[in-house]
């Protein structure tokens, strides 16, 4: 089987087979779509080894920019500001495309055997854009700013487990109250960009150690960056002379700009047109399966969802393959009611896949003793792309099992403040996290702020903490497997699909590598790619 797969992989790399065909063939060989998709990440990487070309102006058309944006990493939440951050700043470590850690501002990372004390040796001779040398004190100040209770940082939640931080010679030292083998992954969070003096005085100044310096900043319109001549890692990043991020929130405008050659790369290609766009000359559609997923969430402490039979009935009543085919147009893979898939390290692929089963759904529904009144499912276009259609599909497939769903369409505006995490049953999405621990801690720990399914199980929490401090990967994998199964069978999460990141790229762009962490190569395409004809 391996030979056959390798042959298929070679064909994809050579361009004689599309990604979807590959996934289909691989499925015939008994490989799940998620695994097949991640297998493709490897041959694609080999193609990137051409020598970078220096110079030129790279233009990026991106959705997710508003005139309210700032360059303060603490307040960053959407795509364009993320692109901007990657140009200007760097974190201590980054999550590499293969899921390992890449040292950036930290030269090396070490932990004590109990995984409670972590030492980040800070790289020497790195300069900020203002000419100041980056020191361990700057790192400390940055982390203090994000963990300050008065801070508005989106990273505040993940900084909470830290007991103390200090500078020790060239090292930045973190002491934890409970062991955490994944701490460096937390330090890779995009909010934690190292700024001079921690950005205490002017966090939105755009002064960092990144490969580009700020040239102009017009929020909601465009952002311009010039190559940082002093960049410490110039061999690997910052190939183009000038980059411009153009805010193109409208999907058609974005596609048109790529087609007419006004931008070199765009994010969020609508899956409906991805195949068509890929056929255009000079344009390639790049898709990579990631950890992001589209979900329907139930509050398991609220009737009728406090009844596990009803939850199971709903989980069996959703047609996952149909969702992937119709909502994602094949640019994604089916989910298994747990937020973890093969893109995560330590994933257990022996957990059985749940499928659409009308009889089982009807049986559980009957057992739940639900009075037959319609179950209200809230959705909105903004919940995830295609959420309204997905809810309608869900309603249809549940109908076949005799489960009455009533769709209540909510306005996009205010959906995240009024519906999500407030109403007992609604559509939502998750961006995924680099490691299982972070995903579970963010949304499935009893005390998590974003526990949007109200999953509160002391035994689950205990397993999470145990796995977190466990340095033996085999044991860790076993614990994560148990947790996944538990959530799959009892949780309030209905997870029909993991979505791919679909980007459109001009064939003039060199150096593209697949990165499952986020779209546009984890927002690093602008700083890692080059223009072949520059």
């Amino acid at each position, binding site marked *: 089987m391996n030979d056959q797969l390798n042959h298929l992989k070679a064909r994809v790399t050579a361009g004689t087979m599309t990604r979807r065909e590959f996934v289909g063939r691989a499925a015939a060989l008994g490989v799940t779509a998620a695994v097949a998709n991640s297998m493709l990440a490897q041959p694609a990487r080999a193609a990137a080894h051409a020598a970078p070309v220096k110079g030129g102006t790279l233009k990026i058309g991106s959705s997710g920019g508003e005139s309210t944006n*700032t360059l303060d990493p603490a307040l960053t*939440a959407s795509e364009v500001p993320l692109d901007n951050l990657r140009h200007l700043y760097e974190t201590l470590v980054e999550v590499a495309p293969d899921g390992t850690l890449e040292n950036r501002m930290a030269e090396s990372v070490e932990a004590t055997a109990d995984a409670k004390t972590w030492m980040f040796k800070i790289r020497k001779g790195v300069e900020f854009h203002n000419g100041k040398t980056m020191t361990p004190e700057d790192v400390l100040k940055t982390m203090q700013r994000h963990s300050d209770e008065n801070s508005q940082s989106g990273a*505040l939640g993940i900084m909470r487990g830290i007991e103390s931080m200090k500078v020790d010679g060239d090292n930045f030292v973190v002491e934890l109250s409970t062991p955490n083998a994944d701490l460096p992954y937390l330090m890779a969070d995009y909010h934690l960009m190292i700024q001079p003096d921690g950005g205490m005085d002017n966090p939105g100044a755009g002064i960092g150690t990144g490969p580009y310096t700020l040239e102009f900043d017009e929020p*909601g319109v465009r952002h311009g960056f010039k190559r940082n001549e002093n960049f410490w890692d110039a061999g690997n990043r910052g190939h183009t002379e000038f980059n411009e991020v153009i805010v193109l929130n409208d999907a058609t*405008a974005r596609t048109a700009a790529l087609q007419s050659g006004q931008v070199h790369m765009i994010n969020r290609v609508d899956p409906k047109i991805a195949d068509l766009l890929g056929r255009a000359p000079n344009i390639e559609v790049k898709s990579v399966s990631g950890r992001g997923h589209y979900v329907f969430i139930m509050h398991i402490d609220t009737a009728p969802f406090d009844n596990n039979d009803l939850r199971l009935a709903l989980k069996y009543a959703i047609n996952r393959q149909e969702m992937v085919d119709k909502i994602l147009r094949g640019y994604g893979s089916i989910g298994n009611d747990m937020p973890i898939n093969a893109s995560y390290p330590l994933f257990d692929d022996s957990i059985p896949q749940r499928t659409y089963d009308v009889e089982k759904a009807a049986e559980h529904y009957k057992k739940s003793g639900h009075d037959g009144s319609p179950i209200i499912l809230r959705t909105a276009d903004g919940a995830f792309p295609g959420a309204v259609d997905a809810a309608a599909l869900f309603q249809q497939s549940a109908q076949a099992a005799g489960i009455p769903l009533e769709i209540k369409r909510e306005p996009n505006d*205010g959906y995240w403040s009024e519906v999500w995490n407030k109403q007992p049953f609604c559509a939502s999405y998750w961006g995924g996290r680099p490691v299982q621990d972070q995903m579970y801690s963010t949304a499935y720990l009893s005390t998590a702020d974003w526990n949007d399914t109200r999953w509160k199980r002391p035994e689950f929490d205990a397993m999470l903490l145990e796995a977190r401090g466990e340095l033996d990967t085999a044991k860790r994998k076993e614990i994560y497997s148990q947790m996944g199964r538990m959530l799959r069978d009892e949780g309030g999460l209905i997870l029909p699909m993991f979505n791919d990141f679909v980007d459109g790229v001009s064939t003039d762009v060199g150096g593209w590598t697949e990165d499952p962490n986020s779209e546009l190569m984890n927002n690093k395409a602008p700083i890692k790619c080059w223009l072949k004809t520059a």
Partner: protein
Amino acid sequence: MHPILILVAQRLALGFLLLLAASALIFAGTSILPGDVAQSILGQSATPEALANLRRELGLNDPAITRYFAWLGGIVQGDLGTALTNGRDIAESLGGRLKNTLFLAFWAAIIAVPLAIFLGLLAVRYKDRWPDKLISGVTLASISIPEFMIGYLLMYWIAIKLRWFSSVAIINDDMSLLQKLDAIALPVMVLVLVVLAHMMRMTRAAILNVMQSSYIETAELKGLSGLTVIFRHAFPNAIAPIVNVVMLNLAYLVVGVVVVEVVFAYPGMGQYLVDHVSKRDVPVVQACGLIFAAVYIGLNLVADIVSILANPRLRHPK
């Protein structure tokens, strides 16, 4: 004092009252929307602490009335304040956007208004013959198609297929006038197509109305050519309704073009306003609302005054 000056003064005073009322309405409107600015800034990734901190910092814990009057006090002194979301000076960022919006509106109007009036006159001249039907048909079709659709169609044919103009209409101060005009060519075309029909139909209707009068018949009988009759005798008497419609459309070009701005990524005020509404950034919404209201009130004032000036009976009241 001349009665017209008194009238203008009265209208201006009323305009200010209207603006005040509009600002109160906008403030109330944004206040009852679900969620607040802190929630919107932090989005799905909001933690309760971060929310509480941001609310305190932005002064959202004060009662709404206090916030409204604090804002009003600033406005009276010419201070629009700073945006809650990114701490930028509103007057500065709004100024650039307003300039862009007026730039686009100006060029659209410069083409659309004379064209619409000319086509209207032409339609009257050839009433019920093929030029009239063609003009009406085309303009009615263009007003019936949603503007984003016209935008996409032009984008596909002109920007992607023919590559004559750019589909991204971003302009900035470093560009020359010619470069700017090149960049905004497509949005100007769309806007012209959208506003043309309304003005052209009104011109046609108003002039046809006058054409029934007996003095037009006299003019025809003394041997004047068709177009001269329309220009010299019919048009001056039809000016009031035409100006009204023109002003309405000009106002639309300033305040109602957010869809076109989005489609062509044009950095105008519409997109700026929408972004800040969705983030509940009240000071910016207020400032935009005030400007939009001022544009509407101002243009309507102009329309009124022009109709009075154009009508001798109103110009010299007994």
